[in-house]
């Protein structure tokens, strides 16, 4: 195994918050880019959770599950599980960009960087004076990516968006229900944030590839909604080809006998997918070849789909007597796609995930030692360095401003005295 990084000569300035933007930065950091995360003590990444005033009003109790021990301790902004899972290996710097000295220091960072990554709402870049036009003056080769809900052009370009509203606007929400079209029976889902993140990372890598060939940077307009639509291609094509509006089938499938069935225990479930006559045969053998399994109505793929209401009851009458793991193991041994529906605790101790070495154990200065999902790819020939913890607020002010931006100690002290930088949120 070689040691080393992939993007060892790439420096990214990240002005992003929440999930989508920081996760894009994390994907680049995981590939070896040097990512400088810029926040402000007046406006830290919202994923750090509430600042001091909100803590006093008790506004935060809803988010206790994401803090160590389920309670809000000291320096809670450095202790949020979500934040701490999205920002590994980044340098954390605070710079109040609404103050001219903050903006000046920021531009010195831009000058020596390759990529600017942001998911600020449309218009914030203009307000702060960090538009593409402003940055390209300082660094003509900069790759500038702005990620917004709906993109920077078009009638919705100024609309507020979150991952879970994009989920609806991109058509994903409408394809996720129990098959009865009831949109109140499912929660909004922030998966669009993750789609946006990986898309931003891919876009930046493609732009870096281009810059290497052509010596030119570029402006990238990345919406959250367009890449999300690109993940439901077959449903969109069905509309453009056949004018058919696809609806959710719930847990069922167009061609497989598929469902989620109750198992022994409290809120315990298993999913089963049976795709062919051969699999159906093996399935009936596993469950002990009961008489009903020979029923003519279930003897073909089409018959099983047509009579699935009844079939589901019969299958559940078997699964209910077994644990989810028993059903999964029995069926997987017969080469049938079955899976226990795992809760957080089950996932945490899952033997496959453990044996793959997927999890990272990382110590944060304030949050302590915790376990996180690891990098989303494994390299066969290269040993990537261990990730370091997500930065505490302003943790690397000194290092970044001195070594990278080239400020003097006196200048840094001045910034501190004037409240341009700091390590404690003001709010």
């Amino acid at each position, binding site marked *: 195994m070689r040691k080393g990084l992939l993007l060892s000569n790439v420096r990214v300035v990240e002005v992003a918050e929440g999930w989508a933007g920081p996760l894009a930065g994390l994907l680049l950091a995981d590939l070896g880019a040097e990512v400088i995360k810029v926040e402000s003590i007046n406006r830290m990444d*919202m994923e750090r959770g509430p600042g001091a005033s909100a803590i006093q009003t008790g506004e*935060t109790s809803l988010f206790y599950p994401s803090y160590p021990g389920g309670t809000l301790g000291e320096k809670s902004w450095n202790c949020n599980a979500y934040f701490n899972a999205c920002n590994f290996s980044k340098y954390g710097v605070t710079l109040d960009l609404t103050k001219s000295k903050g903006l000046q220091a920021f531009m010195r960072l831009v000058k020596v960087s390759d990529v600017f990554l942001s998911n600020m709402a449309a218009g914030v870049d203009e307000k702060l004076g960090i538009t593409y036009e402003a940055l390209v003056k300082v660094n003509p080769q900069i790759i500038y990516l702005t990620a917004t809900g709906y993109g920077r052009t078009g009638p919705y370009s100024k609309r507020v968006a979150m991952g879970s509203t994009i989920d609806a606007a991109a058509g994903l929400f409408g394809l996720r229900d129990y098959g009865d079209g009831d949109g109140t029976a499912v929660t909004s889902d922030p998966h669009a944030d993750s789609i946006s993140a990986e898309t931003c990372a891919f876009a930046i890598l493609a732009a870096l590839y281009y810059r290497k060939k052509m010596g030119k940077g570029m402006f990238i307009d990345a919406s959250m909604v367009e890449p999300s639509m690109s993940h439901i291609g077959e449903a969109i094509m*069905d509309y453009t080809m056949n004018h058919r*509006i696809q609806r959710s089938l719930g847990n069922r499938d167009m061609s497989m006998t598929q469902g989620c069935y109750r198992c022994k225990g409290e809120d315990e*479930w298993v999913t089963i997918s049976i795709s062919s006559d051969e699999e159906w045969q093996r399935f009936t053998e596993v469950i002990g070849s009961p008489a009903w399994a020979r029923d003519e109505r279930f003897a073909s793929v089409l018959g099983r789909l047509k009579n699935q209401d009844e079939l589901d009851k019969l299958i559940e009458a078997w699964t209910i007597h077994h644990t989810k793991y028993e059903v999964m193991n029995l069926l997987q041994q017969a080469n049938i796609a079955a899976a226990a529906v795992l809760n957080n605790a089950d996932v945490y101790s899952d033997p496959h995930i453990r044996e793959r070495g997927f999890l990272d154990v990382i110590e944060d200065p304030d949050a302590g030692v915790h376990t996180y999902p690891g990098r989303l790819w494994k390299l066969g020939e290269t040993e990537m360095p261990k990730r370091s913890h997500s930065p505490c607020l302003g943790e690397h002010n000194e290092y970044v401003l001195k070594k990278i931006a080239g400020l003097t100690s006196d200048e840094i002290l001045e910034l501190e005295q004037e409240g341009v930088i700091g390590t404690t949120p003001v709010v």
Partner: protein
Amino acid sequence: MKGEQALTGLKVLDVTHYIAGPFCTKLLADYGADVIKVEKPGEGDGSRRMGPFLDDVPDPEKSGLFLYLNTNKRGITLNLKTETGVKIFKYLVKESDVLVENFSPRVMPGLGLDYQTLKKVKPQLVMTSISNFGQTGPYRDWKATEITLFALCGQMHKIGDPDREPLKHALSIYQYFAGEIASLATVAVAMRSANTGNGECIDVSILETMLGDIDTMINTYDYSGDKGTRTTAKNYPVYPWGGFPVKDGYVSIQGVGGGERWMPRLFTMIGKPELKDDPRFSTPQNRVKYRDEFNVLLYSWLIDHTKQEVFDEAAKVRYPIAPVYNTEDLVNNPHYQERGYFVEIEHPRAGKLNYPGAPFKMSEAGLAIRRPAPLLGQHNREVYCELLGYSEHDLSILRRCGVT
């Protein structure tokens, strides 16, 4: 250079099928890479059989899924179960920077095409493998569908009605998600290989990409012992949050848990700005406690408005609400149309159709449609004769022997 796209010059050999692998190579191809897709003679990629089909008539050249996932690729047929086929495959590897495959993990080694072997053929090769569970581990050879993986990643447990069974996500979106992760890792590694001459193999497990999705099962449990529960607008710990009925469908409302500055905007939207001083609704805890009372006010306003009207009203007060669009809404939406998201592509058999287009816009060198998805074996002559130097006569022998 005219027509130079971001990834122009990257040479990709593609032995992928269904969704995750083809979406990975589609992204590479749409942004300029030269992708040669290898399919099984006679049958081709399994997605050719999956549909949806044009006019609902099953035809391997008219599957919407295949047509969408394989734009900009050249297509050849090659039988990897023949010795000659494997030999020719190695010639193709020699001509490529990147190889992407998404067979189950035993297949490539079974064909004698594992990374260690191919590395000898081409030391700089970047080989990307996408599989359900990864190339190692106790579940490696288990069978999986989208719902199997969604159940095992811990997210399914939390989706749906708390009084009903857990619910699957839409369609096959996590196959796409994993394919895209693979594409970005591939470009990063290919850039290094071009610099150093060092090859690499990349192992992407679809299950792991789901676990790294930010709805963080693992670290939430690690931090607080929270096992996760299913939530809807009925019981979500933030209110309002989730799907709400309107005159012609649903809208999704995000509650913005910690952001009290947002709530007065919602009160203004429903014509009751005075609610900001109502103690029942002025704190997050109380809004959850008085959920039913708030529902009466919210529902009665929403039901008088269409989803588009609600979306427009929410935009005026700057509150995050969006309509639950179906695919008809998407294709006919003026915003997506103005941005030119849907692109018309002409295919020799399927004709002119609108496809989802650029997932992001570059100021230069962005997505371009150079060719539609290939017919089965469409580029055999071009690739075997022009690239590898076989004669037309050789090609006819290879066809007769079942190699191409």
